[in-house]
C-alpha cells in the first residue's frame, strides 16, 4: 500500500470499456450543444410547440373529446364513427356538435381530433419508407460508382422528374390493395425517395474522397465496415434534417390523394384528407355553406405541415454550419 486510494472508475462500475464511456461523454456534449443552438432558434421552438399540440391530439383523442363533452354538456364524448346525426348532406354546427355532423352522421369535431393519429402516422411512416429507400440507393450509388451508379441515377432521374402527384395518382389507381393505409404509405414512399437518393449520393461522393477513408482502407477495413462506421455517421445528420421536411411533404401528399378519393376508406379510417373529400365531393359543402367542415381539417393540415417545416429549417441550420456563418 503506498497510500493512494484505488481509483474507482465509472467504466469499471458499469462493466464497460473506457473508450466507450469517453464516446458517450462526447455524444452528450454534442447533444447539449445542439440543443443549445436549437433552443436559440425561435423558429424551431415554435415548430416544436405546434407539433406538441398535434401529438397530444394523436395520442389522447378520447380524453380531449371527454373534456369537450364535459364543457359542452353533451350526452357522452362522441367517437369518430358514432352515428350522432342524420345521414345526408351534413348538418350546421350547433351547441351539441360544434362543427356540425357529416354525411354519415358522424361528429365533425370528433373526426378532426381523431384524424390527427392516422394523418401523422401516414406522414411519418411514409417518410421512413422513402428515406430508407433513398438512403439505400444513394449509399450504394455513391459507394459503387461506375456503371452501377449510372444505372441507379437514371432510375432516380425518372422519379425526380415525374410530377409527384401524377405518379401518385397512377400508382394509387393501378396498385392492388384497395384503400388500405399500407398501400397509401407505399405509394407515397415510392414517389418521394428520389431527392434523398441524390443528396445522400452527393454526400457519399464527397466523403469518399477524404483522407480518413483511405486511412481506413490502408489498415484493412472492409467495405461494410467503412460504410457502417465512416460513411453512414457522416450522412445521417443530413438525412435526418431532410426527413423532417419530407414528413411535411408526405402529409400534404396523403391529403391530396385522399381528397381525390384515392385515400383510405372513410367509413373505417379518418384522415383530414378524406374528411375534405367527403365535404367537397360527396356533400358539396362549398355550395351548402357548411364552411367549417372544410376550414378546420384544412387548418390542421396547414399547422402540422408548418410545424414540421419550421423544425426542418431549424435542424438544417444546426447541421449545416455553412448556413450558420452567413
Amino acid at each position: 500500500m503506498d497510500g493512494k486510494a484505488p481509483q474507482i472508475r465509472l467504466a469499471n462500475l458499469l462493466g464497460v470499456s473506457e473508450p466507450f464511456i469517453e464516446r458517450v461523454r462526447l455524444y452528450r456534449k454534442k447533444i447539449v450543444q445542439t440543443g443549445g443552438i436549437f433552443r436559440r432558434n425561435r423558429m424551431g421552438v415554435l415548430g416544436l410547440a405546434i407539433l406538441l399540440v398535434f401529438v397530444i391530439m394523436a395520442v389522447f383523442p378520447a380524453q380531449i373529446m371527454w373534456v369537450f363533452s364535459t364543457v359542452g354538456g353533451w350526452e357522452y364524448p362522441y367517437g369518430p364513427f358514432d352515428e350522432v346525426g342524420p345521414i345526408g348532406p351534413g348538418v350546421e354546427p350547433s351547441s351539441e356538435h360544434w362543427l356540425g355532423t357529416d354525411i354519415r352522421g358522424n361528429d365533425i369535431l370528433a373526426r378532426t381530433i381523431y384524424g390527427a393519429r392516422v394523418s401523422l402516422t401516414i406522414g411519418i411512416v411514409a417518410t421512413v419508407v422513402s428515406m430508407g429507400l433513398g438512403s439505400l440507393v444513394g449509399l450504394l450509388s455513391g459507394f459503387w460508382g461506375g456503371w452501377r451508379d449510372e444505372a441507379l441515377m437514371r432510375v432516380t432521374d425518372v422519379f425526380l422528374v415525374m410530377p409527384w402527384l401524377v405518379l401518385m395518382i397512377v400508382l394509387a389507381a393501378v396498385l392492388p390493395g384497395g384503400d388500405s393505409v399500407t398501400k397509401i404509405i407505399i405509394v407515397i414512399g415510392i414517389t418521394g425517395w428520389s431527392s434523398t437518393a441524390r443528396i445522400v449520393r452527393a454526400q457519399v461522393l464527397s466523403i469518399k474522397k477524404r483522407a480518413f477513408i483511405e486511412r481506413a482502407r490502408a489498415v484493412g477495413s472492409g467495405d461494410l465496415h467503412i460504410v457502417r462506421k465512416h460513411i453512414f455517421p457522416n450522412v445521417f445528420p443530413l438525412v435526418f434534417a431532410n426527413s423532417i421536411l419530407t414528413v411535411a411533404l408526405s402529409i400534404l401528399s396523403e391529403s391530396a390523394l385522399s381528397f381525390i378519393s384515392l385515400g383510405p376508406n372513410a367509413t373505417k379510417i379518418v384522415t383530414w384528407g378524406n374528411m375534405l373529400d367527403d365535404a367537397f365531393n360527396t356533400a358539396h359543402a362549398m355550395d351548402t355553406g357548411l364552411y367549417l367542415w372544410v376550414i378546420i381539417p384544412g387548418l390542421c393540415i396547414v399547422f402540422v405541415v408548418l410545424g414540421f417545416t419550421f423544425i426542418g429549417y431549424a435542424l438544417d441550420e444546426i447541421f449545416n454550419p455553412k448556413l450558420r456563418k452567413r
Partner: protein
Amino acid sequence: MKNFRRIVLRKILNSLITIILVVIINFALFRMMPGDPTKFMVPSNPKFPAEYIEGLVEDYGLDKPMYEQFIIYLKGIPSLDFGTSFEHKNTLAMDHVLDYMTWTLVLVGVSSIFMISIGMSIGIVAAWKRGSKFDTGSLAFSLFFYAMPTFWLAMMMVILFAKEWSLFPSHRALEIGDSFHFTLASFMDLGDHLVLPVATLTLVNIAAFSLLMRGSLSDVMTEDYINTARAKGLSETAVLKDHAVPNAMLPMVALIAITIAYIVGGAFQVEYVFEYPGVGWATIDAVMHQDWPVLQAAFFLIAVAVVIANLLADVAMVYLDPRVELG
C-alpha cells in the same frame, strides 16, 4: 466550347434514357399487376358490351404473351397511339389529352410568370434588408402558403371570393358552353375565370422562389467582388442591380427546372377544384372512370414535357455558368 458540346450531348443522352424508362414504366405499371390482365386492362363495367371488350383484348393483344403486348405498345409510341379512350368512344386517348393540354399550358404559363417575378422580387428585397421586418414578414408569409395543401387553398379562394363576395366565377375556364374565340369578350371571360386558379397556384409556389433567391443573394453578398464594387464607390442600388442579382440568378434557373414537376402537381389540384378543363382534370376524371388509355397518354405526355423542360433548363445552366461540371 468543345467541353460545352460534350456536356450538352451527355445531358441529351440522359434525357433520352429517362424517356425510354418512362415508356417502359408506363407499360409495366398497367400490365405487371397481379391478376388477369384482360380483367385489369378492361375494367368490368356493365356499360361495355361483350364484343367491345373482345375488340379491346384483340387490339392490345391482352391474351398474347407479355413481350408481344410490349411490341404492340411500342409500335404505337412513335405515332403517340395509346389506343382509344374507354369513356369517350371513338376518340384517340392522346387526342383527348391534347385537347386539354392548351388549357393547362395557359394556367401554368400565366401562374409561372407571376410566381417567378413576385417570388424573386420578394427574395431580393428580403436579402437586401436581411433581419428587417420585411424579411421576417415575407418569410412567414411564404412559408404559410407553402404549408397549404393546394386544393385546400383553392377551396378557401372559392369560399371567400366566389361564394361570400361573389367577385369571380368559381367554375370552368369560360362561361359554360362557350368555346374560345379571339375576341375581346372571350379574352375578358377567360381572364375573369383565370383570376382565382392563377392566384392559388402562384401563392402556393412563391415560397420556393423567394426563399432560394434570398439564400442565393445572401451568399453572393458575402463575395469579395461585392466589396470591390462598394469600394469603387458604387451606390447600393448599383451594387445590387449590376453585381449581386445577376450572379444570384444562376441557382434560380436550376430551381425553375426542378419546380416544374411540383407546379404541375399543384396545377392538377387547382384544376380539379375549379373544374378547369386541363390535363389534371382529365387525368383525375380518367382515374375515376378507369379509362386506362387516357391515363397512359396523360402520364406519357406530362413526363416527356417535364423531361424536355428540365433538359432546356440544364442546357441554359451550362451555357450561363461555365463552372458547371459534367455530372
